[in-house]
């Protein structure tokens, strides 16, 4: 199962989260570089699904990490550090979206990892394309809830914290997102089973 958001393989996993946060509060630049490089990977997919212009993705990421630097002293540890950072990124991405005039398309930025060693690559590749297109038809809120659940592997409680909405709203969004995804996939979903 995906554990990207709470990866135990993080560069700073050897120490407790509290100890690591203390280093950040103490302006330990090496610790922050660790965090920066770690979240550059962790946030890339999530942000790219919200805003699809490379320079905007970079802007949202850097804005997010700047807020982390500025506000880490206020972080009370009520949630996991990763939840807090994702919540900042979500807010920054929404703000960045509001500044874009054109509709956002994900064709260029998001893609599927292709494996070339199986016989059904062509068929799989076709299905992936259909799914990627179907993802694009979702609203950014529905896409976010799908990604946070399936890509980041997060609990609905953490997703509610990130999206700053009630838990029931997360479940409802997920319900509608799945329904719409299946509608866009049409009969193709049967081919997968």
């Amino acid at each position, binding site marked *: 199962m995906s554990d990207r958001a709470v990866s135990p393989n993080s560069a700073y996993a050897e120490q407790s989260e509290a100890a690591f946060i203390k280093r950040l509060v103490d302006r330990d630049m090496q610790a922050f570089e660790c965090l920066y490089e770690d979240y550059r990977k962790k946030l*890339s*997919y999530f942000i790219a699904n919200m805003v699809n212009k490379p320079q905007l993705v970079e802007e949202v990421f850097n804005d997010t*990490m700047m807020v982390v630097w500025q506000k880490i002293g206020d972080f009370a540890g009520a949630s996991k550090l990763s939840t807090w950072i994702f919540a900042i990124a979500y807010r920054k991405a929404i703000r960045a979206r509001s500044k874009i005039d054109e509709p956002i398309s994900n064709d260029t930025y998001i893609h599927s990892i292709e494996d070339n060693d199986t016989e059904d690559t062509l068929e799989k590749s076709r299905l992936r394309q259909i799914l990627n297109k179907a993802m694009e038809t979702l609203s950014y809120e529905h896409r976010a809830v799908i990604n946070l659940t399936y890509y980041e592997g997060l609990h609905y409680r953490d997703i509610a914290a990130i999206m700053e909405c009630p838990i029931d709203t997360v479940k409802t969004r*997920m319900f509608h997102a799945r329904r719409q995804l299946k509608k866009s996939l049409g009969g193709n*979903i049967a081919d997968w089973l």
Partner: protein
Amino acid sequence: MTKSLSDLCDIHIESLIPWYVTNQLCEDELVKVQHHIDDCADCAKIVEEERKIAIFIQEREANKIPSDWKIFQQQLLNFDLEHPNPMTVQSDSEIKKSPHNIIRFPILRKTKIFISKPKTLGFIITAQAAALFAIILTPDTNVFNNIANEDDQIYNTLSSDQTEPNQNINIVMQFDPSLTIEELNTLLNNNKIKIISGPTSTNAYRVKVPNDITLETLRSHENILIAEPISAE
């Protein structure tokens, strides 16, 4: 044909399926969902569909964010220079209201060193900076030679950098912390580096260097960890 969910299945149970698939449910919910899908072929089918979708989602990826730590680090240092005590950061509007964004040194407020009757704000900064170095470095060093003189104190107001083309370049610099004072002095003298202020909480100094010395030269120095021009905002 499948039955409508609302007819036969508890919508609450059905809405938990995604987190059942990702193994995120608590024991209580897990048992409920498991119990239901054991008896409900429709929901069992939904579980299989969601598993498939989850795998396809996990196979998606995005390009790596094109970002540069060195450049970003400079922004962090700039922020700390402008907000020496980040735990009591002013709001943007408050900062804009004040005529000069004076660099303050939180460490100094805790020290019992008083400066007598300063004439100008610029002098306060000079004296404070000097006091700061006096605390951090031993008093019998000539590191003070490298602190820019009072005429240069324009650099202490971040909002009023009026550097003319021929003037020296304003830079944020971090040195190897293991340097002795003598080594630091030699480094400063050899490279004609003048300390304007610092260190900040991140151990960064605001310095001036002659404009015939390139950033590359400074950066290639093994004891200079960071040399970044201060961006005019």
